[in-house]
């Protein structure tokens, strides 16, 4: 496949490599080292690093500033941007700001409802939704125009991504929804954490039946469990998450001190199995507050070393 942007992630995917991305959550304060030290741990083991945007609606150091810090380290950031907190003026403005620092990847999201975070009494914006944000970035890039119709002097060059949750309801439209995101202009997809592999494989088959795997790079999302408690929490408390009973059982049956190791093993086994799924073009490893384990997961999964493409 040919590339349309200077994104290194896009080049790696276009060259046919299995891409590896991971994420860094910015700190709840102004200490920039918190983001760079997380990035230091993983930088040689991933191709690009997502920076979350006030995830779960908890106020944090902004995604754009954190992406700039990664860029200044010579790394490849993926700017996560939610439509919850910004109207179309702010979204377009931040996209241009990111592009001015040669940030070439964006992940377009609607964002968790603010009720989950530290400002449940705040307003939300949702001037556009995640699909319309995908359209917005593509329009700015491809047409060189603002949504208002004016020309952009030096349009942003962004490789445009979106999230997909194969496990939310209703399941029957989950692939249609993926198709809609692709139609809107998504070029890569990072999925929700996959624990129910059979259901995910079923979703991928439906996606392949529609030829979507040839229109968009799908990166499979994985998150290692640190403990049996985390597995139960993800199963019962996180909306749109599908953790099968046998996975929770496997964690619970493991002695407490060995649970982290077991969680990593489940994660590595998942990656190994997902590698065999036609249409999977890489992995998005979300090691929540456990970034130091990303190198081990990448190595044990046979995804190291990473390709050298500039």
């Amino acid at each position, binding site marked *: 496949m040919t590339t349309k942007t200077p994104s290194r992630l896009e080049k790696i995917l276009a060259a046919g490599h299995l891409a590896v991305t991971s994420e860094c959550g910015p700190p709840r304060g102004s200490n920039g080292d918190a983001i760079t030290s997380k990035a230091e741990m993983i930088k040689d083991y991933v191709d690009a690093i997502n920076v979350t945007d006030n995830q779960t609606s908890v106020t944090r150091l902004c995604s754009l500033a954190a992406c700039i810090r990664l860029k200044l380290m010579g790394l490849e950031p993926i700017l996560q941007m939610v439509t919850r907190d910004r109207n179309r003026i702010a979204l377009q403005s931040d996209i241009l700001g990111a592009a001015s620092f040669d940030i070439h990847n964006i992940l377009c999201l609607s964002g968790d*409802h603010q009720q989950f975070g530290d400002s449940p009494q705040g307003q939300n914006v949702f001037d556009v939704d995640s699909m*319309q944000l995908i359209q917005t970035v593509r329009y700015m890039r491809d047409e060189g125009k603002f949504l208002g119709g004016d020309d952009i002097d030096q349009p942003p060059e962004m490789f445009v991504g979106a999230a997909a949750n194969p496990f939310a*309801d*209703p399941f029957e*439209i989950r692939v249609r929804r993926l198709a809609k995101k692709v139609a809107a202009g998504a070029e890569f997809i990072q999925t929700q954490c996959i624990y129910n592999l059979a259901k995910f494989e079923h979703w991928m088959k439906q996606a392949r039946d529609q030829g979507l795997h040839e229109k968009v790079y799908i990166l499979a999302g994985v998150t290692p469990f640190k403990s049996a408690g985390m597995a139960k929490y993800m199963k019962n408390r996180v909306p749109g998450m599908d953790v099968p009973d046998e996975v929770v059982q496997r964690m619970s049956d493991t002695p407490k001190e060995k649970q982290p190791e077991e969680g990593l093993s489940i994660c590595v086994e998942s990656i190994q199995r997902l590698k065999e799924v036609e249409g999977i073009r890489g992995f998005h490893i979300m090691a929540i507050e456990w970034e130091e384990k990303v190198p081990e997961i990448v190595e044990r999964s046979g995804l190291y070393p990473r390709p050298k493409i500039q």
Partner: protein
Amino acid sequence: MIVAERKPFDEITGFIKECKRVLLVGCNECVTVCYAGGKKEVGILASALKMAFMKEGKQLEVKEVTLERQCDHEYLEEIRNIIAEYDAVISLACGVGVQFMAEKYFGTPVFPGVNTLFMGVTEERGVWTERCQGCGQCILGQTAGICPISRCAKRLLNGPCGGSTKGKCEIDKDLDCAWQLIIDRLKELGRLDDYDELIPIKDWSTERAGGPRKLVREDLQP
């Protein structure tokens, strides 16, 4: 209808603690239907206020009136002859009625007796739910007659989000996911292919975002 609920009693007494004579005005429209500000609620509140004042050794005279509507000049005019006799008005109409009353009777304090909530329906006895946010450009024709602006917590025009679980919204397990409802009804109508159409970025200028709204029908003007 416009759905409202009575304000906490202490908040209302707080408004009028210096008053001796109060005009308590109900409305025969929406707030009557949702049991917040009709004739019956006017009577109950009037008694409660008098009792509360009496307990503190004070006297309060309350005049009870329930108008046909408080959002039209002609009905509000019905109290013109008596309003000067009172220290304040408590209106049990929605926020629209309270304001129109205050505009009309500029020199008399007017206090709200209800909190105005939303435009909605009586889903069952004692339960009201929101259906419309008055965006000014109805999209129900594209969404199987179910409004994602008023019924999706993120007002997503291209939902559902990843938080939809077993037909319910991520913010409240008792709240229906609007997009589940839309998809269910599209299926029922044999129009699920409509789901594949991307709904474009919305023009919000006809909504609150565009500033206070006004409708002029010249054909109806005198």
